[in-house]
């Protein structure tokens, strides 16, 4: 009798222990949100939402803070990175699932996933010392002399190609987020029933037609989820961008301008914030970033779950 109840008590204690640790995830996420909210309250009260998000001023001396340049910097780098990375990622997923011979599938897949294992600080280091000089010497002048000559579109490549700018940051970001879309897209492609593909082949479709008309439409929700995941990553990436963006608080005119993102601003100014309202404004930025990336990642996750359930 006593032995049974003893083991029951132990079992219950273990249950409680594991349950508490599992629920700590909920506690952490809500805790992070509440703490960020609490710390940013002074700035929220002082500037409001519109007054903060649409203001371009960032003046610690006069204690006026606006988030527009940082938010725009974040949006430009993230969307340009997405634009560069998504086609490549989907191409890689097609290569791994449909084209590569079996002995190449694993090594190529691993190599692409290793891109995600390289820490962002290494990307930043490499970006500053290796990629930025290459960009300023060869790639940016090339874009200036080609696309830059087209009247209206050319404006985005105006300015001196220094290498420390939005364009370089976006290129680095795009390399970093390739593996996220690629691996999710690969998994979704693999979920396509082979009966569908075989039927298409049977009526004479080429491999590309099978991919374009059968695999891609079937797995588009999953791929969309992968894109969302990449976007969430790109929004929150700090160190890789901090090296090559220059933390300049202005709304950029061209891709060759230095700029700031929310993360870069946080990384550079957080420990320098000497006034409470300054720190609070930085927390407000962090809160906006948290809400944005959480919303996008949650949406991406629902897409991925939906794709898996089919």
């Amino acid at each position, binding site marked *: 009798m006593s032995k049974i109840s003893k083991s029951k008590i132990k079992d219950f204690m273990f249950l409680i222990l594991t349950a508490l640790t599992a*629920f700590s995830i909920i506690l952490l996420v809500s805790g992070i949100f509440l703490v960020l909210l609490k710390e940013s309250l002074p700035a929220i009260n002082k500037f409001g939402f519109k007054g903060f998000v649409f203001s371009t001023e960032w003046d610690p001396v006069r204690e006026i803070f606006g988030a527009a340049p940082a938010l725009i910097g974040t949006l430009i780098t993230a969307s340009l990175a997405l634009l560069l990375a998504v086609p490549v990622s989907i191409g890689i997923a097609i290569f791994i699932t449909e084209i590569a011979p079996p002995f190449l599938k694993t090594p190529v897949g691993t190599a692409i996933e290793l891109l995600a294992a390289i820490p962002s600080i290494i*990307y930043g280091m490499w970006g500053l010392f290796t990629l930025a000089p290459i960009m300023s010497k060869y790639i940016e002048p090339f874009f200036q002399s080609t696309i830059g000559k087209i009247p209206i579109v050319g404006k985005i490549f105006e300015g001196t190609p220094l290498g420390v700018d939005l364009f370089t940051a976006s290129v680095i970001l795009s390399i970093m987020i390739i593996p996220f879309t690629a691996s999710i897209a690969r998994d979704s492609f693999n979920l396509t029933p082979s009966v569908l593909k075989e039927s298409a082949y049977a009526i004479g479709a080429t491999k590309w037609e099978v991919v374009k008309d059968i695999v891609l439409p079937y797995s588009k929700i999953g791929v969309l989820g992968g894109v969302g995941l990449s976007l969430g990553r790109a929004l*929150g990436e700090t160190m890789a961008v901090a090296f090559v963006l220059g933390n300049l608080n202005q709304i950029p005119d061209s891709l060759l301008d230095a700029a700031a993102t929310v993360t870069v601003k946080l*990384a550079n100014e957080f420990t320098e914030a000497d006034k409470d309202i300054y720190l609070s404004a930085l927390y407000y930025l962090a809160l906006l970033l948290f809400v944005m990336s*959480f919303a996008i990642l949650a949406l991406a*996750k629902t897409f991925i779950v939906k794709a898996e359930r089919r």
Partner: protein
Amino acid sequence: MKRRKIVSSIALFISCLTALWGIFWLFFIIFDVLRHGISAINFDLFFKDPAPPGQPGGGLRNAFVGHILITLCATLIGVPIGILGGTFLAEYGRKYKISKFISNLADIMVSIPAIIVGAFIYSVIVKPLGHFSGWAGGVALGIIMIPTVLRTTENMLSLIPWTLREAAFALGAPYYKVIIQIVYRGASTGILTGVILAIARVTGEAAPLLFTAFNNAFFSINMNEPMASLTVTIFQYAMGPYEEWHTQAWGASFMITVFILFTTILGRILIRRRYKF
């Protein structure tokens, strides 16, 4: 007919090129770090503390030791919580909806900007204590570790067949004993892999350490003080004006990259051997 075939081969060719594009960057970055880093590796880098700014010589002993201590602290926090939490999701709580919710939330948390965690810890630990500390850095990295470990543990436990548990139940074993002695044993390689990959990920983090552990130009093993770490030192040195600093930053980058590539590949080999994917 012919046109369709041509279009198909062009599209497939482009797809091959994208794979090459990805692999190209991987090797470019790795070789670049190796090329710059290997010449910076010497005895002094590991066993000497930094020289005053601008002067030649010195090393990064303080950063190496600090980095190991902070990572160790993070592992001690993140691994137990992650494994136990994953156990709940895969065992006791597997029938509840809330478990699915927690596991999705953990998946989201894996991708939450790391710098946010730093800001969070700054508010709950650094500000009340009034100073930066190695502990704060360890806790920040520990928090980043939890969801990764939790998710792999959950997945690995789910792979253990139910018949195995039922056999143990039939012998009269209580659930906790079944988990600890049967399920954990069966899933140990998988869990270990999860832990290794989580450590690898956390080793490269710089953003959450910027305003928790901060930095320290002197050797210190007191976790209650600001503590140097390799990643923050790389950031500071790379952005600094001295050639000597840049070389040392490459040396530190080299060590981190080699460590992370090694552990990541080791983790993959372990898991492939065990589960034969």
